[in-house]
């Protein structure tokens, strides 16, 4: 198996494959970093340019985009607090605070190296465990998917911030958003208020860009007045970093890295939901296992490592599913699969054994593109980090325009631009009134999947006990309950400690 991989790598480093792979990775990093441009969009734009290439050249380029995009999102997530792509949402939670604490270099490079290690670990799983992992994925029926997404939703309890009530309300609002539009079975309109474009439901991406980008940019604008005097007082951003130290920071947490990468692979293998859920689930796990959960959200390195290692490992997982079953897990893999078809490749269970040169070529492309990604980032880091010193009056209009263009380009329709506007205003109001945004986004990501899988389960069998008696499903439900209880306990303990420290006996 590994000799096939090595010959695959020897094959892919030839200039005729390395060049498309490099260009793909580069474009992926760019697309991932631009807020409003997702990996899916980037890959759709790149696809037509690969038609004239040979299959492995084309697929190498696409793999590069996928890997590069999954890493690129961290740049804007850390530096601007706006996820460049949905899979980088969780990176903003700690990446952005770390940058504001004056360590942009550390934040970005922690993300880059975590992506690198997470991606390579994902690659190990991809090659060694394709068979067994794929078999687990097949065991997931509607009951298991329902329980898995309920488990993911239980993270809301861990993401509420100061007030549990406000966090739950925000999560509920997200779920309501997913109810709007036609019902998923027979298309009966719900909460459409008679507005035509609402009948198709609300797209996730304009909600994400609206809520995160607008609220962030608006609060930046508010602060612009006092920035003139305030700038000198703030810490001088440290752009220079010691790579050894940062790699050390990651390697020193082997369990975290392994576990979050595994979560990434697992979510990737399951054909229902993409990198955004993987990174948030991994983030939540990191917080639960941490001895200092209260540090999360204030610039904890663990948060960045969890999010970025899992979303790159997720790429490896989803490649397994398209290669083993020909079933796409999300839009990105759907386009990859389409690309394979266009290049005349029938993916499916026999693909890896019948077309081993090509299959291992893709594995090799996946691994090599992680190295290319680090090189690209290293060359670009100097310029990227300058983003933090660009005046906000220049940056804000540019990011706003990109967000609107991105929302439009999603389906080439105006409706998404209106959704962007509405949720931009809503997100800003929520932030103003102290509501956390992460539960809202989580609700929007998970609502549809929870609903449709609940319906499917009951349509298949009206015995509700199956949710508890099927082992994987039952286990996940128990874990959901435990996860909520644990988060509440952590929250209470944190509040108690806070009360103690405000009593005046702070010992530092």
């Amino acid at each position: 198996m590994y000799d096939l991989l090595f010959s695959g790598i020897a094959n892919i480093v030839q200039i005729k494959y390395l060049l498309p792979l490099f260009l793909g990775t580069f474009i992926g990093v760019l697309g991932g970093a631009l807020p409003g441009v997702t990996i899916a969009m980037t890959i759709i734009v790149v696809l037509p340019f690969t038609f004239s290439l040979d299959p492995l050249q084309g697929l190498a380029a696409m793999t590069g985009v996928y890997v590069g995009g999954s890493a690129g999102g961290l740049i804007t997530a850390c530096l601007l607090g706006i996820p460049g792509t949905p899979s980088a949402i969780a990176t903003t939670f700690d990446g952005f605070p770390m940058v504001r604490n004056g360590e942009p270099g550390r934040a970005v490079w922690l993300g880059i190296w975590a992506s690198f290690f997470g991606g390579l670990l994902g690659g190990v799983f991809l090659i060694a465990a394709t068979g067994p992992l794929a078999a687990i994925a097949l065991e997931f029926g509607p009951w298991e998917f329902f329980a898995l997404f309920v488990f993911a939703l239980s993270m809301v309890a861990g993401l509420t911030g100061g007030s549990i009530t406000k966090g739950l309300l925000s999560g509920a609002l997200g779920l309501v958003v997913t109810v709007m539009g036609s019902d998923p079975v027979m298309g009966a309109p719900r909460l459409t208020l008679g507005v035509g474009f609402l009948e198709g439901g609300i797209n996730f991406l304009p909600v994400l860009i609206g809520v995160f980008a607008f609220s962030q940019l608006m609060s930046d604008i508010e602060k612009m007045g006092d920035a003139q005097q305030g700038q000198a007082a703030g810490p001088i951003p440290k752009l220079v970093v010691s790579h050894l130290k940062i790699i050390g920071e990651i390697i020193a947490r082997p369990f975290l890295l392994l576990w979050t990468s595994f979560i990434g692979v697992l979510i990737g293998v399951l054909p229902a939901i993409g990198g955004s859920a993987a990174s948030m689930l991994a983030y939540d796990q990191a917080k639960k296992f941490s001895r200092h959960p209260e540090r999360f959200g204030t610039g904890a390195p663990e948060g960045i490592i969890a999010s970025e290692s899992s979303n790159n490992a997720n790429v490896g997982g989803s490649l397994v599913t398209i290669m083993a079953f020909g079933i796409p897990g999300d839009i990105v893999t759907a386009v990859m699969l389409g690309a394979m078809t266009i290049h005349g490749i029938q993916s499916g269970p026999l693909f890896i054994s019948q077309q081993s040169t090509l299959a291992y070529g893709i594995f090799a492309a996946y691994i090599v593109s992680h190295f290319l990604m680090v090189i690209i980032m290293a060359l670009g880091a100097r310029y990227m980090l300058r983003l933090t010193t660009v005046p906000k009056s220049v940056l804000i209009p540019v990011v706003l325009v990109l967000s609107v263009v991105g929302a439009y380009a999603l389906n080439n329709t105006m409706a998404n631009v209106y959704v962007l506007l509405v949720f931009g205003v809503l997100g800003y109001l929520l932030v103003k009134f102290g509501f956390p945004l992460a539960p809202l986004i989580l609700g929007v990501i998970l609502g549809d999947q929870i609903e449709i899988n609940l319906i499917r389960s009951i349509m298949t069998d009206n015995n509700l006990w199956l949710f508890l008696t099927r082992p994987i499903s039952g286990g996940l439900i128990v874990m959901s309950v435990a996860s909520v209880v644990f988060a509440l306990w952590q929250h209470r303990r944190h509040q108690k400690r806070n009360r103690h420290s405000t009593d005046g006996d702070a010992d530092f």
Partner: protein
Amino acid sequence: MSKLLAAIIAFGLFPAAGFAATYPDRPVKVVVPWAAGGDTDNIFRPFAPALQKHLGQTVVIANVGGASGTKGAKEAKDAPPDGYTLYVPHEYIHSTYYTGVADVQYSDFEPICMIASTPSVLTASPKTPWKDAKDLIADAKARPGQISVGATLASTSHFFPALIEKAAGIKFKYVSYEGLAPRMNAILGGHTDLTDSNLTQKGKVEAGQLKFLAIATEKRHPEMPSVPTLKELGINVVYDVNRGLMAPKGTPAAVLARLESSCALAAKEPAFAEAMKLQGTAVRYLDRKGYAAWLKQTDDENRAISKDLGLLKR
């Protein structure tokens, strides 16, 4: 990237530009009412470059999925009738109208041409005990309403098994799975028993992950001659999914004629035929007149089927 931006500028800033005389002078958008990577998408992605070649303009595919394909249909219907927004339906446009899922119907569009026809195959999970369709029918008779079928409700994947139900005098249980990909995942894992699929799934059958019980063609298919037809099993059902190109009602005749002639040439491209073979699909070209007549007939048939199945809402 620059291509994307060019397309955005062309669509966004100059919607009023472009006259029939100079058609097409900017990119043409084709609305695929399903997600990327689905059957419709896989058929039109190789068709787009062929059409582009003969139209002399960029052809962009816009995937507008959701609500059983009716979201894209609505968007295409409401687009300006200038030939810059086209739409690619299949039989679902008739079935979703008559079952009350959508209020868009085929007559809201001008037909341009039909390009492809994909025969349906009755497909079973490997975890089911049946060796062939005969076993299935016997089992279904013994356990009415127990055998589960994954389907996009009110669409072709629902109508095809429903026709079998009627012809064989049996009763299935339907579970909503919109689109082929989630249906495949459910059936590979044995979470549903049956589904409608097509010859694109051949690889999984050869690997023993799926069972083709019967194909809904008149004669056995040369790609998989071992699969019997429903007809030879005594079930008189012939069913295929046909895809073509349409434009919003009111598109000028000159524009339609230009599109029709480009479509005719594009459908003859050898590269397109090659791509369709991989899709388990036959190139089936019908011109404007032929497609219009076919649509009328199919619409009547779908109305009759909806009525037979007790799903008729109009």
